[in-house]
């Protein structure tokens, strides 16, 4: 058992944990807001809005994340008008920002489906009662629809959060040094394939386990009282 190697592997790969968590949390935050907007658009009566939301969802869920990532990073980076524009270049110029954007747009599509499922599942009676009570559209959404949809969608959304954490590993293909990036670089130097990738795998398992536990806690908190 090569302790030196193991120690080196754990410390090197551990450096990527912060980056992985940053990538995941920022993407999830942006993706959730976008996804919520898209879900609302989808259930609205407006044909244009629901159509756009539906196509957005189909496109981003029907193509691999890797293709989306490369399309943004290399594809858009090819054009002069993007390179010369400081705002656009800030987004897709650096690997980290580009990965966050691609991940956020991707998770927004899946999130919109999950939240749409949550919004649809609200019993019609509740909505009618709210309308009868004279609640405005916005108030009804804020007090009735949104909280109920969230509670319903939480298990599925927890799943999506795990998928986003796994998705961050793809950022390693565009030079971002998160867990997988460090693991791959270390492997190229030492060729200790099994040990390095196992350690990287353990890091991900720990992060995901912690996440799932947290989600279950929130689920319990939301469903137990006030039933």
């Amino acid at each position, binding site marked *: 058992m090569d302790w030196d190697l193991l120690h080196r592997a754990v410390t090197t790969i551990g450096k990527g944990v912060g980056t992985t968590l940053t990538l995941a949390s920022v993407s999830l935050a942006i993706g959730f807001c976008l996804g919520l907007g898209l879900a609302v658009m989808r259930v609205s009566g407006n044909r244009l809005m629901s159509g756009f939301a539906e196509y957005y969802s189909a496109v981003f869920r029907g193509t691999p994340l890797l293709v989306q990532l490369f399309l943004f990073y290399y594809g858009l980076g090819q054009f002069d008008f993007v390179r010369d524009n400081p705002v656009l270049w800030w987004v897709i110029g650096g690997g980290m920002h580009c990965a966050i954007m691609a991940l956020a747009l991707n998770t927004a599509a899946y999130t919109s489906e999950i939240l749409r499922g949550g919004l649809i599942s609200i019993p019609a009676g509740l909505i009618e009662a709210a309308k009868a009570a004279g609640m405005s559209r916005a108030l009804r959404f804020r007090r009735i629809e949104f909280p109920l949809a969230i509670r319903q969608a939480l298990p599925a959304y927890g799943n999506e959060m795990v998928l986003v954490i796994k*998705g961050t590993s793809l950022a390693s293909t565009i030079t971002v040094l998160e867990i997988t990036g460090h693991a791959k670089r270390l492997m190229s130097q030492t060729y200790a394939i099994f040990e390095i990738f196992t350690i990287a795998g353990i890091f991900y398992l720990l992060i995901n386990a912690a996440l799932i536990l947290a989600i279950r806690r929130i689920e319990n908190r939301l469903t137990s009282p006030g039933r």
Partner: protein
Amino acid sequence: MEFGLMQLWEGGWAGALLRGASVTILVGVGAMLLGLATGIACGLIKWARVVPLNWLVDIYTTVVRGVPELLIIYLLFFSSVEFVARIGTAFGWAGLAETGYPFLIGIIAIGAISGSYSTEVVRGALAAIPTGHVEAARALGMPKARIFRRIILPQMLRIAAPGVNNVWQATMKDTALISVVGLQELMRTAFVGAGSTRSPFIFYLVAGAVYLAITFVSQSGFKRAERALVLKGRA
């Protein structure tokens, strides 16, 4: 602005992309079948609670669902998977073993990943079968094999169908990841073309469009299959 559409056509890349797409579909189907076989076996084990096998299945699904697919593919590809070549040779595919090495690894890796999700779908479907049906069949004195064949299996297939559709969609998209270890499927072809012609935008756009087409076609296919299953299962 170099759009590259002309380069795509002239450089013969259109043919290469189509070839890549066919490899993608082959790997996807192969992996899906492998995953389904694994999923049905493991799902049954978990549902029937065969100890200690179901613990192994638990470890398998937990690990494969908690670790990024890219990592699993790297692990399988870079480690000394000599026995893959040996199996290939033993079955008389000596030539395939060399040229087909990434192909085999791809199917095994994606199949293993797909299998873990299929396991959950199968297990959920089996659990959703009303226990009353099985009890009644047993009370009637039906042999176990027939119970499985006439009661459990048809219902499992029908309930699992939407879940299997989801697993298929995910499996198809996961095949793009094998491009990073060099298999000449669709994504890799786009990657090489993009690098060689310096027109990444058009190549990845076309690749994305092809994936969308595959998704769309399989979606309508599945919808039709679901409708057929529901009609048949009118018990």
